[in-house]
């Protein structure tokens, strides 16, 4: 285990006191330390939102991108240098709302990318509008009479869409969450860790207490993550009992990188970049003779 301080940087954290994002930050650092992944070996991507500030607070390579687009940017980076660990941090609006189509598509591709979604069921940074994961009836500044949409379920969507690793954590239990993140990093392929993250300012429904009363651990409930239909069942549970833990995991599926011919000789970014030799050049020209 590496020293946790390795991941500290001097940037001041700007989250509200009590925000669920703190727990996620701690869990992320702890997972990296336990897996002995050095700051220069991991590439973080995030979008825009409260949660997306997380990479700014970790000493590691990072790219804070634009709202909703962390996943395809991360995928491009992974394909350019698959020696690096790639971890995406998105909000729920960011990752499942505006970024919904990229989410659907990364599921089908299975790159070796970890996706941690800070799911506070609200838009935090823009001051409290409803999010795709907001529960029906949720009252916000843009839904004064309550949301009239069915909440987006990231877990069932991920499993149904082809994800090979799907977990849910709770930021109120950072130790458990760290374990999930470790498992996600170790998983070969796309790994979603959806995190129940209380927003203490804009979500007065899905609070720490709300979750503490409801969450239970799948590993203690005899759940077998390899059982897809059981996983779908668990993924649908919501209300009195909310499962956390690894919901689904399929092993042995090839990653996207595994299947690309051009990547067999090692990461693109590490190849020497030089003009083609005269023979290759001539071959290319001859195609047009």
């Amino acid at each position, binding site marked *: 285990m590496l020293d946790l301080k390795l991941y500290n940087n001097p940037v001041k954290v700007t989250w509200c006191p009590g925000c669920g994002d703190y727990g996620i930050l701690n869990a992320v650092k702890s997972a990296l330390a336990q897996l002995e992944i050095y*700051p220069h070996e991991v590439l973080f991507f995030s979008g825009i939102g409260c949660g997306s500030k997380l990479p700014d607070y970790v000493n590691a390579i990072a790219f804070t991108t634009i709202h909703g*687009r962390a996943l395809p*940017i991360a995928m491009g980076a992974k*394909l*350019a240098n698959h*020696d690096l660990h790639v971890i995406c941090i998105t909000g729920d609006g960011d990752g499942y709302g505006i970024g919904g189509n990229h989410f659907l598509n990364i599921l089908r591709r299975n790159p070796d990318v970890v996706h941690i979604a800070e799911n506070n069921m609200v838009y935090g940074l823009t001051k409290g509008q409803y999010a795709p994961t907001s529960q029906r009836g949720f009252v916000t500044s843009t839904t004064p009479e309550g949301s009239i949409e069915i909440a987006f379920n990231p877990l069932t969507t991920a499993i149904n869409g082809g994800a090979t690793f799907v977990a849910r954590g709770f930021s109120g239990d950072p130790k458990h969450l760290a374990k999930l993140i470790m498992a996600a990093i170790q998983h070969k392929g796309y790994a979603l860790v959806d995190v129940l993250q209380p927003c203490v300012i804009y979500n007065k429904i899905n609070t720490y207490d709300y979750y503490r009363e409801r969450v239970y651990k799948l590993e203690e409930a005899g759940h077998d993550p390899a059982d897809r239909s059981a996983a779908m069942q668990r993924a649908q549970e919501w209300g009195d009992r909310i499962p956390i833990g690894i919901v689904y995991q399929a092993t042995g599926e090839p990653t996207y990188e595994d299947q690309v011919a051009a990547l067999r000789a090692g990461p693109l970014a590490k190849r020497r*970049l030089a003009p083609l030799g005269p023979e290759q050049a001539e071959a290319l*020209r001859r195609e047009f003779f």
Partner: protein
Amino acid sequence: MTLRLAGEAGQGVESGGAGFAQALSHGGLWLHTYTEYMSRIRGGLNFFQIRVSDHPLWSHTEGTNILVAFSPEAVRDYGPHIVPGGALLHDEGLKFDHDAVARRGTQLFPMPLTKIAQEVGGNKIMMNTAGLGALAGIIEYPFEFVADVIKKNFKRKGDAVVEGNLKVAAEGYRIAQERYAASFDWKVSPLDARPHRMLINGNQALSVGAIAAGCRFMSGYPMTPASSILEFMASHARKYDIVVKQTEDEIAAICMAIGAGNAGARAMTATSGGGFSLMVEALGLAGMAEVPVVIVEAQRPGPSTGMPTKTEQGDLLFALFASQGEFPRIVLAPGTQEECFHAAARAFNLAEKWQCPVIVMTDFYLTTSMRTLLPSEFPIEHVTIDRGELLTSEQLDRLAGPYLRYKDTPSGISPRALPGHPKAVHQACSDEHDEYGHFEDEDAANRLKMAGKRMRKFRNIVEDLRAPTIYGPERAEVTLMGWGSSYGAMREAVDLLNARGVRANMLHFVDLWPFPEAKAAPLIEAARQLVAVEGNQTGQFAHLVRAMTGRRADRLVLRWDGRPLSPEYILATLEEAKVHA
């Protein structure tokens, strides 16, 4: 002389035309091809035309010497383009208004194409081979060249197909020559000097340039007329070690390229206007985070879906100012196929040197038109690869202080480290940030520093950019000014004008943005009569030139009916303007 094949989509107009062009090219002739097709997969009306000459060509021209028509619509729509004394070659069974065609003085060359295909080849679909054979017979181009191409192109379909097509072509040749060669004035003979020539279109040239420059990653979403770049790269991915990814949309396409570019792979995406519209937000991300990425914008007529398979130069000002805020970007618009190659290669160097997005603008016409070119125009092995201030692993090992990703430097360029080195743990950021790359989206002084750095970079880029090309006599009465694909039409128009005694020259811009003011302004000032020649409705380049230099174009030659500018169109419009003046 111009040969045009025309018929429905699916009748092999394009593939047949391309094959015929090859046959001519192998005879040492110089070609320019131009194709038009409809936004549908079968049926409709397409054409492929070949202008052929014993000297290099720069453009298509209006008028067809011989039209090979495979459908009645082809006769109806393109018959009128046949020049006086020209001919219409067609299957004897084709139904159309013979009198109307004859009345225009066009010779009718009916041929038993279907019959030959069926009887000699055993398959009706060889009718188009029969037509090409006949065409060669009429212009008396030696059959061996046609035969060679048939052998080459049908090879993978097996010997029987090769044999069948050869026989059909030969029969077409024989009959047509016998019947019509004598009455057709234009002939094409192979030249004595027949060096290897490349017959290549804009998208192919651009793709070759990208491969030459070490493009390692391409993501894209299909869109006419850009798709063939993605397809070319996909078909060359294995051989040239490129990751090629078709994405869910254009947003993902540019985002993946940005991710790859930032991680150290030379990366590109290609699209047309509608897709570029979707890339606009991420374009700004590349500008702010200073990520090298090459974006090809192959224009077609807008607005919106517009005319998907026609041509236009309507996206200039959009490309220059797309995305919120102000940031460095480079815009290049190659004018010819060889310039497509060079612009692509330069684009990757410029993108990495200046750490910014580079937009290469082409259009349907340039991307699909082929020209014969000497292989020496494509010095693939001599392309320079300049990654700019990219810190090597050794340099990073020796780094004394902390690594500043966005270091404020006199040039505005912050030396780049690729992700992965222990001494260069750093962050890229879309919010305003400090030199480390950390969020600093409040502080005014930091903003002035960082925005100042980026703007300094932008101002310095111009030193790497090129002045417009001048063609024609130095002191001229009329100066044509243009950008991108209009090069060829303008150049031939200049020649025609001078031949007619009008002293004309031209200024052609490939490097558009940052506007090479210092290099261009004196040339523009010097113009006596400045004529902006553009494939759009409003004179966008004229707008830009006026904004940058104050000089207003004296006249505009604009075309926006979906068709490319041609030398004749330019001349006619100039004439008209004179009349109306």
